[in-house]
């Protein structure tokens, strides 16, 4: 069509010299179908190639020098830690209902080491949906009115000042601990932290202060850490809240006891601070474990797919594997491990690499098929958790303040004998000591290594420069197809008119017609705008629905769906209903709608890729094929060829998959099995998204859903 257009142009007047870039653009637009097929295939292929292209991690920051110092944690410190574990698991300590006894024990232990100790009381803040609080940092200085003495948590904080340090920086060690129903694992994690802490009070090489936070996890691990961080980073100056909390007798009791029992100690009632945080480690020990060897799992994803600096993971991985002989795990999507198609894909890549190597020995990019499958499973989970935008542990609270943090979960091979317990205390303690000593060597913030990456194994990563290619290839055809459709719609209507009327009529109405035609896309733009507006309304609806008391997730979801449909119909009818009164004379109306839709999707995906790449990548996988293939079903039915039939099927399938709830249930079914899928699950899932201020929620509501509606409207377009 473009050729014909050019021909007509050349007929009219001598062709002006076209610059090469413009000519290339015209070429791409005129071959947009081929380009889009090639690009999309390449994009998907590149995504599957990522595990092959993954590079080995390396310590990028010279100053870290992990493992260069031999561990100093000795059996003496381990037995100290063991003592604390015993005291905590002792049934006497659990007598108190609020678990205050355990906190006292911990504080006493810290004081005995000569650390500064303070308690931090906090009232758990329930995560609520605040429509305007996306992307904003956690609320500071907010005063809650209805404190009740029954619901508060106590964080125990111990601080070691670096003997010769300047006190400007600190390293944080967090152990979540639920005093009311602590398992043996939690006590053990406290034991490990304590043994490290007791060592660190003696060493001379500290350059940064050490903060040990025993986070009261009875209201959730994240809430406790977040509350402490909020207090640490943005102090409250209102005098109202503090006496409020201290009126509770139990807390006062606690403080008084402390104050009396140890006179002249470093215990303080006020909130204690150290310097800015260089890094934070959250340490957990899992209770039950069926693994055959001691493993350590690293959780790194924070809110909105933010990751800590790769160097932190590298240091932990290096020390765990090469010094302590622990196996390091990162999350995998387990169902993918057994998928046969992935295995065969890995075998194909492997054999391809072999062929390449035989052609030119220096090409070494192949990895074994099993490794490929594992890498893909890890990569998929990395993508999934980043896309979700929900932190995978208490470390997420630190990332909100730009502190690099990870959660380490040690899962020991379980046995009850004492030797084993000492062993895990020693190795875990030495690992933590090594990481702390390494971070202690740091001179600046973590900045050398990557912040944008996907892990394919604990020691392999794909950096932003590589994974962006897959996404860029996926969305590259969008603007071309949009332009091509626009040109197409304009020129074809031109031709249809030319056929029907006499040549004189063309010249007559030419100018006027061109003027109208060139502005016709505004009509479609209006439609697209209205649908996006509707998307925004739909995203706001849960805020009101959640205000309804005693509403089960299923009913909430139903209400949401109903209200959404209602609002769509209303907006349709109120705002001139472009769908219904699309002028039947303009046959290519749908093409213009599609063109504008594709443009808006392109913009939406581009914006989202900046905010949360993983969401944009998954969204692009769902939406790009649907957008590109969308075509009125009627046309395909009318054509009746095999090609149009295929397209019809594809359209129907994609139209189902790309619907957000459908995509959710499909994913959930794939991961957990379809048996226990429930309609309310989607509501719960969405609720968790907005509770964590995930941008994914906005993306689904304001990009994906409108896009889906528009595509469906194109599918059912009456032409």
């Amino acid at each position, binding site marked *: 069509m473009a050729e014909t257009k050019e021909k007509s142009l050349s007929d009219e007047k001598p062709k002006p010299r076209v610059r090469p870039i413009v000519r290339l653009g015209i070429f791409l637009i005129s071959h947009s179908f081929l380009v889009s097929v090639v690009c999309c295939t390449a994009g998907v292929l590149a995504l599957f190639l990522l595990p092959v292209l993954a590079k080995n991690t390396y310590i990028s920051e010279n*100053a870290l*020098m992990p493992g*260069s*110092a031999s561990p100093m944690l000795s059996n003496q410190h381990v037995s100290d830690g063991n003592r604390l574990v015993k005291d905590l698991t002792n049934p006497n300590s659990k007598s108190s209902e609020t678990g205050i006894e355990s906190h006292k024990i911990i504080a006493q232990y810290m004081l005995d080491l000569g650390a500064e100790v303070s308690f931090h009381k906090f009232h758990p803040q329930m995560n609520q949906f605040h429509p305007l609080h996306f992307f904003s940092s956690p609320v500071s200085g907010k005063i809650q009115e209805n404190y009740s003495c029954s619901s508060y948590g106590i964080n125990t904080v111990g601080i070691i000042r670096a003997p010769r340090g300047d006190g400007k920086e600190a390293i944080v060690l967090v152990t979540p601990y639920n005093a009311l129903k602590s398992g043996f694992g939690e006590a053990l994690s406290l034991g490990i932290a304590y043994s490290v802490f007791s060592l660190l009070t003696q060493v001379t*090489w*500290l350059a940064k202060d050490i903060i040990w936070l025993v986070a009261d996890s009875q209201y959730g691990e994240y809430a406790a850490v977040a509350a402490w961080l909020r207090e640490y980073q943005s102090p409250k100056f209102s005098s109202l809240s503090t006496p409020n909390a201290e009126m509770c007798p139990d807390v006062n009791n606690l403080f008084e006891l402390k104050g009396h029992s140890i006179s002249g100690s470093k215990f303080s009632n006020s909130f204690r601070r150290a310097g800015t945080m260089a890094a934070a480690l959250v340490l957990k020990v899992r209770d039950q474990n069926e693994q055959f060897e001691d493993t350590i799992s690293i959780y790194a994803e924070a809110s909105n797919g933010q990751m800590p600096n790769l160097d932190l993971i590298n240091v932990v991985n290096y020390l765990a594997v090469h010094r302590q002989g622990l196996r390091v795990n990162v999350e995998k999507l387990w169902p993918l491990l057994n998928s046969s198609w992935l295995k065969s894909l890995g075998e194909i890549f492997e054999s391809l690499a072999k062929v390449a190597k035989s052609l030119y020995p220096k090409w070494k990019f192949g990895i074994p098929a099993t490794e490929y499958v594992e890498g893909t499973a890890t990569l998929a989970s990395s993508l999934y958790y980043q896309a979700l935008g929900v932190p995978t542990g208490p470390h997420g609270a630190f990332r909100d303040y730009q502190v690099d943090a990870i959660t380490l979960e040690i899962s020991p091979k379980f046995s009850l004998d004492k030797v084993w317990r000492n062993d895990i205390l020693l190795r875990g303690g030495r690992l933590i000591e090594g990481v702390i000593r390494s971070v202690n060597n740091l001179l600046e913030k973590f900045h050398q290594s990557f912040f944008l990456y996907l892990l394919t194994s604990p020691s392999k990563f794909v950096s932003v420069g590589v994974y962006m290619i897959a996404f860029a290839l996926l969305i590259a055809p969008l603007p071309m197809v949009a332009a091509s459709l626009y040109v197409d719609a304009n020129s074809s209507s031109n031709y249809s008119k030319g056929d029907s009327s006499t040549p004189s009529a063309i010249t007559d109405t030419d100018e006027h017609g061109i003027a109208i035609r060139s502005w016709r896309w505004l009509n479609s733009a209006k439609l697209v705008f209205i649908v996006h507006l509707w998307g925004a309304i739909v995203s706001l609806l849960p805020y009101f629905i959640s205000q309804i008391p005693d509403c089960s997730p299923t009913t909430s979801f139903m209400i949401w769906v109903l209200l959404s449909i209602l609002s769509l119909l209303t907006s349709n009818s109120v705002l001139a209903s472009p769908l219904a009164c699309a002028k039947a004379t303009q046959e290519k109306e749908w093409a213009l709608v599609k063109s504008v839709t594709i443009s808006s999707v392109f913009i939406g995906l581009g914006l989202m890729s900046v905010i949360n790449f993983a969401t944009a990548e998954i969204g692009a996988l769902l939406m790009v094929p649907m957008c590109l293939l969308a075509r009125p079903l009627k046309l395909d039915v009318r054509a009746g060829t095999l090609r149009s039939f295929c397209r019809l099927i594809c359209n129907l399938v994609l139209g189902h998959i790309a619907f957000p709830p459908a995509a959710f249930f499909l994913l959930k079914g794939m991961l957990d099995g379809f048996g226990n899928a429930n309609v309310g699950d989607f509501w719960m899932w969405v609720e968790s998204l907005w509770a964590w201020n995930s941008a994914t929620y906005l993306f689904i509501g304001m990009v994906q859903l409108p896009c889906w509606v528009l595509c469906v409207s194109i599918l059912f377009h009456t032409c």
Partner: protein
Amino acid sequence: METFINPKSLFHLLLLPCLLLYSSIAYNSSPVEAAMHTNNWAVLVCTSRFWFNYRHMANTLSLYRTVKRLGIPDERIILMLADDMACNTRNKYPAQVFNNENHRLNLYGDNVEVDYRGYEVTVENFLRVLTGRHETAVPRSKRLLSDEGSHILLYMTGHGGDEFLKFQDSEELQSHDLADAVKQMKEKHRFKELLIMVDTCQAATLFNQLQSPGVLAIGSSMKGENSYSHHLDSDVGVSVVDRFTYYTLAFFERLNIYDNASLSSLFSSYNPSLLMSTTYYRKDLYKRRLEEVPVTNFFGSVMETIHTDAAYKALSRRNSGRFEDEMSLDQSVHHIKRRMLIKVNDGDEIHDINPELLQGEEGASKCPWSTFRNKFQKAENVDSLLNYGLVAMIPLLVISTWLVQ
């Protein structure tokens, strides 16, 4: 000078400007050879900061200790340390620096005089030290007060690359800068011989631009090679010494001040397989044979001793032959005067006094009167009558040069 056709009484007067002319010629063409090795200096530079570069400071301090042990006094050592590892909070042994994991030797013990420390160690200050262009407020202890009889050891360690050496993680010394500084030093007669020893990655490239004679350079690695650390002290948690420096020190630990080990034995002591890099030494600018130069000429303060019957006599004999060559090379405007001069030169040594005297006036440190008196005393030893006459001319000479200036 037109009054050449004058009687013999004017002969001496005539001779004076000729001597002046001559001395200036001699001065420009071959100044260094005229001087003896009279003193030793060492400039030891550690250019990198940060805790993980502990080894660079340990390198420099070890070398500092070695040259001090071999006889270079503290006031002739300029020690530049870009960071203070001893007092770094990460140091497990506060106020101590070790270059070996056995911790036997504390390099940061007593009597360590650091002349430039911390952020004072910059490219600018380094070049100022070499070229002697200091601001007036800089104390003498921070200056390199070398002269044309000095042997200087310049040791540098840090992070380097192709034709550069990093200073302080923020700036670089390029090979051009170094070559330029050395050239200036040469022109200002700040050294007789200079040994540059560099322990960085691609150290050899730093010498590429050197042109000045009398410079000997040795680097730890060739272009494209890294210089590696020798071992890690797992107690302190850092690498404590670099390979090249470690083996240099190992060589010197066997020596004392009376040893006669030559530079070539030092250079051949480096084993590339132990160093994991190839040492490179550039000797094309250096005249003497390395086999004949004892290492203590640079690393210690041991000078050649020449026995003479009389003070200053030996000095003069060295150069008399060469002057003639230079004369013949010169163009012929004053050829007659020159012939006369040569006549004087034969069996004469007074001409040597003149440059010394001139220099004595230039150099602020020497007292012209005492030199003058020396000359008089010296004249008694000389039995030639002509010499008496010439010595008597010296006041005139002094006045005339003074007027010329």
